[in-house]
């Protein structure tokens, strides 16, 4: 079985490699932006690429529980890294917007208040802040059962992120809708009635 191959392999991957590997695209994209590799409008390109990677990491994080529950693939040890990397990319996305794109506190504040897709994006980021802050072992121990409840905020953050993407493009484009559908679908898999139904099917 493939599962018997993946699980032992996943246990052997050193965690530092996951973090370093995860940050390589961030540095690489910035380098490309500096050297003309992101086309004639590198600021927008960088902003979009960081945002998209953040969303992909968040959706990947949502896959971990269903993979274990329905397919016995155990990647749980990567979940924290995925979440923290996603937070890092969202922060980079935000920084490009603040520092390279708008460069004016007035414009930034106006945009956050006036533009629904930016309000929604900022709310998504706000959801991720306490999650990143409580991702360490000490917080997990200290918060106990409350940690699990708090970390359900991930669901809110992913959906807000995907809605932000759907809203910022011109017209109804397929790509952002695919991310939204994936996020909603993966969250729905956690819903008890669906879970038990699928559990029987796979079990």
């Amino acid at each position: 079985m493939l599962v018997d191959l993946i699980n032992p392999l996943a246990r052997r991957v050193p965690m530092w490699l996951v973090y370093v590997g995860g940050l390589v695209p961030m540095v690489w994209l910035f380098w490309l932006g500096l050297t003309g590799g992101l086309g004639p409008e590198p600021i927008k390109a960088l902003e979009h690429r960081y945002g998209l990677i953040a969303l992909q990491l968040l959706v990947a994080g949502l896959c971990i529980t269903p993979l274990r529950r329905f397919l016995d693939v155990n990647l749980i040890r990567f979940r924290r890294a995925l979440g923290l990397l996603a937070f890092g990319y969202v922060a980079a996305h935000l920084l490009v917007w603040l520092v390279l794109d708008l460069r004016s506190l007035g414009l930034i504040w106006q945009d956050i208040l006036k533009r629904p897709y930016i309000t929604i994006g900022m709310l998504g980021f706000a959801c991720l802040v306490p999650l990143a802050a409580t991702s360490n072992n000490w917080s997990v121990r200290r918060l106990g059962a409350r940690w699990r409840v708090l970390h359900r905020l991930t669901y809110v953050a992913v959906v807000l992120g995907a809605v932000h993407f759907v809203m910022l493009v011109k017209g109804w484009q397929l790509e952002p809708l695919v991310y939204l559908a994936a996020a909603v679908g993966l969250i729905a898999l956690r819903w008890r009635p669906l879970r038990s139904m699928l559990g029987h099917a796979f079990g």
Partner: protein
Amino acid sequence: MHRPTKAPGWADVTPEAAYLNRRQIIAGGSALALGGIAGGVRAQGDLEPNTFEDISTYNNFYEFGTNKGDPARYAHEMTTEPWSVEIDGLVDKPGTYSFADLIDGMPMEERIYRFRCVEAWSMVIPWNGFELRHLLDRVGVQPGANYVAFETLYRPEEMRGTRSRIIDWPYREGLRMDEAMHPLTILATGLYDRPMPNQNGAPIRLVVPWKYGFKSIKSLVRISLVEEEPVTSWNQLAPREYGFYSNVNPTVDHPRWSQATERKVGGGLFSARQDTLMFNGYEDEVAELYAGMDLQQSF
């Protein structure tokens, strides 16, 4: 400035260095040459054209995909020879005109225009083309024609982006008659003295420099003179966001982003935004077209 050649070929390509020298003369003389009409090309300092590469690799042409690089990647799949444009509606000489017939005798000139996208980026582009009014005069506009409607080619087998129904193809645009007859409104057949790249709307496209870029419809196959305001694609799709007029206006924000500033493409990772100008800097020439209109309402 007047080029007798019908369609400049690759043999006519000017080396970039020579081109830049010559352009300075053209830009300096433009106020004179256009009889004061393009005298509004007054802020010469910021009229530094983008490179040919910028202009031909960063495009919105949804018929080939929604990413900025898609048109440059896929527009070569579009056949532009033979090409014909249908002219119909309230016109004395309706018919299907071949590209050669269409541009025959039209006074070709170069126009260095600012180009402002509704997405808040901009470029400066040296177009080659002729004033639309010359063509309209030749085909004879009949009384009662209040608007001009335009259509882009719709050929799904050569335009992969049209397989997604994001827009109700074909792409359509329109102008009020006085806008269409304005001397700043041109039909462009090239840029940088080269034939129009496919991704920029080969072989012939509209350019209306004081309106958001999406009004400057590409790869034209139909021009209709009509009585009523025609349906236009983005207005049809999202009327709250894209009005029929869509004049560049820093005081009327798009519902999802500010239109007060823009960033000129090509400045690299640290290029700052610049203020967007009323009517994209062509206020002196075109403001009178909208005298008495509430531009907050008729955006």
